[in-house]
C-alpha cells in the first residue's frame, strides 16, 4: 500500500479548454459573453433585443444551449445568420454548458467574420457558475417575477458575474420586488458588478446595456490587439 499526493483541480480540464477557447476568440477579435439565468428570465429575449440594436453595427454570432429542443435557436435564427445550437440532454453535463461543448460550437462558426458572440447558457442558477467557457464577461439575468432574493439564495453565480441585467421591469406594478435591496445584496457580493434595469418587452433600459456591451467590446479589442 502506498500513498500518492495528487492535489489536482478536477475542473482543470474544463479550465484548460476554456483558456483555448478564449485564445481562439482573441485571435479573431471576438468579444464573447456568457449569459446565465434561471429558465424564463429572458436570455433569448435579451439576445434578440441586443441583436436588434447592434446588427447594423456588428456581426453577431449566437451559441444556444438547451437541455432539449431548438425553439430558442429558431427564434434567434430569424434575426442572426450565425447560430449554433447545443442540445445538452444526451451529454455528460445536461444542466450547463461546459468549455468542450463551446469549443466544438466555435468550429461551426465563421470566426473571422464575427465581432460579438452571445452564448446562451442552459437555464439554471447553480451549475453554470462552476464552468468557465472561455467568455470575456459573465452576465446574469434576474427577472422581477423571480423575486428579489436570488443573490441571497444563489450567491456564487452573482459573486462571479461581471454584470446583472434586471429584466421584466414592466412587471414592477404587479410583483413584490425591492430593486434597492436587490442591488445592495449584489454589490455586497461583488462591488464591481454592473447593474442594468431593462424590459426586453418594451425595450426600456436596453440603451444602457447596449452602450456597456460596445464599451467592453472595444476594450477587449484593444487588449487582444496588444497581445498580438
Amino acid at each position: 500500500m502506498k500513498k500518492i499526493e495528487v492535489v489536482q483541480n478536477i475542473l482543470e480540464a474544463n479550465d484548460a479548454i476554456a483558456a483555448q477557447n478564449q485564445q481562439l476568440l482573441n485571435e479573431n477579435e471576438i468579444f464573447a459573453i456568457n449569459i446565465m439565468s434561471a429558465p424564463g428570465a429572458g436570455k433569448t429575449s435579451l439576445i434578440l433585443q441586443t441583436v436588434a440594436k447592434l446588427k447594423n453595427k456588428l456581426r453577431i454570432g449566437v451559441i444556444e444551449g438547451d437541455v432539449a429542443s431548438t425553439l430558442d435557436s429558431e427564434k434567434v435564427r430569424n434575426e442572426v445568420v450565425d447560430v449554433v445550437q447545443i442540445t445538452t440532454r444526451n451529454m455528460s453535463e445536461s444542466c450547463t454548458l461546459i468549455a468542450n461543448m463551446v469549443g466544438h460550437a466555435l468550429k461551426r462558426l465563421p470566426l473571422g467574420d464575427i465581432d460579438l458572440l452571445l452564448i446562451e447558457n442552459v437555464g439554471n442558477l447553480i451549475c453554470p457558475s462552476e464552468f468557465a467557457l472561455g467568455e470575456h464577461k459573465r452576465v446574469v439575468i434576474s427577472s422581477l417575477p423571480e423575486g428579489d432574493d436570488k443573490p441571497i439564495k444563489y450567491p456564487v453565480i452573482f459573486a462571479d458575474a461581471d454584470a446583472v441585467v434586471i429584466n421584466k421591469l414592466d412587471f414592477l406594478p404587479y410583483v413584490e420586488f425591492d430593486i434597492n435591496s436587490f442591488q445592495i445584496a449584489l454589490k455586497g457580493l461583488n462591488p464591481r458588478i454592473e447593474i442594468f434595469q431593462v424590459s426586453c418587452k418594451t425595450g426600456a433600459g436596453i440603451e444602457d446595456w447596449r452602450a456597456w456591451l460596445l464599451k467592453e467590446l472595444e476594450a477587449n479589442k484593444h487588449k487582444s490587439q496588444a497581445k498580438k
Partner: protein
Amino acid sequence: MHEFGITESIVSIVLSKAKEARAHRITEVSLVVGELSDFVPDCIQFYFDFLSKDSIAEGATLHFELAPAQLRCRNCSVTFHPQDTLWACPKCQSQGVEIAGGRELYVKSMEVE
C-alpha cells in the same frame, strides 16, 4: 447532473497518476469538495463505481473532505462561516462579503498497491 463529467475527470486523473506510479490497483481516493461548490458526494461515488468498472480503480473507496464555506467581510475583514442564508458579517452586519473558501474541488491523494 453535472457530476458525471466531473467524475470522468476524477477517474482520468487517478488512472494517470496510478500509471505514473506503476500501481496495479487503486484502493482509496481522497477528494476535497468545497461547501459552496455544487457537487454532491453520493452522486460522485455512484458515477465513480460505474466509470471505474474494469479499470484498476474498480472498487476504490472515495473519501470526501468537506472544505467549509469561508466568507470575509469587506468592511471589517473578519473571516466567518455563514450560519444562515443571509451572508452578513456577524461583527458589523455588513452585507459586503467575499468568498474566501469553500469552492474547492480537487483530488488530494490516493492509496495504491
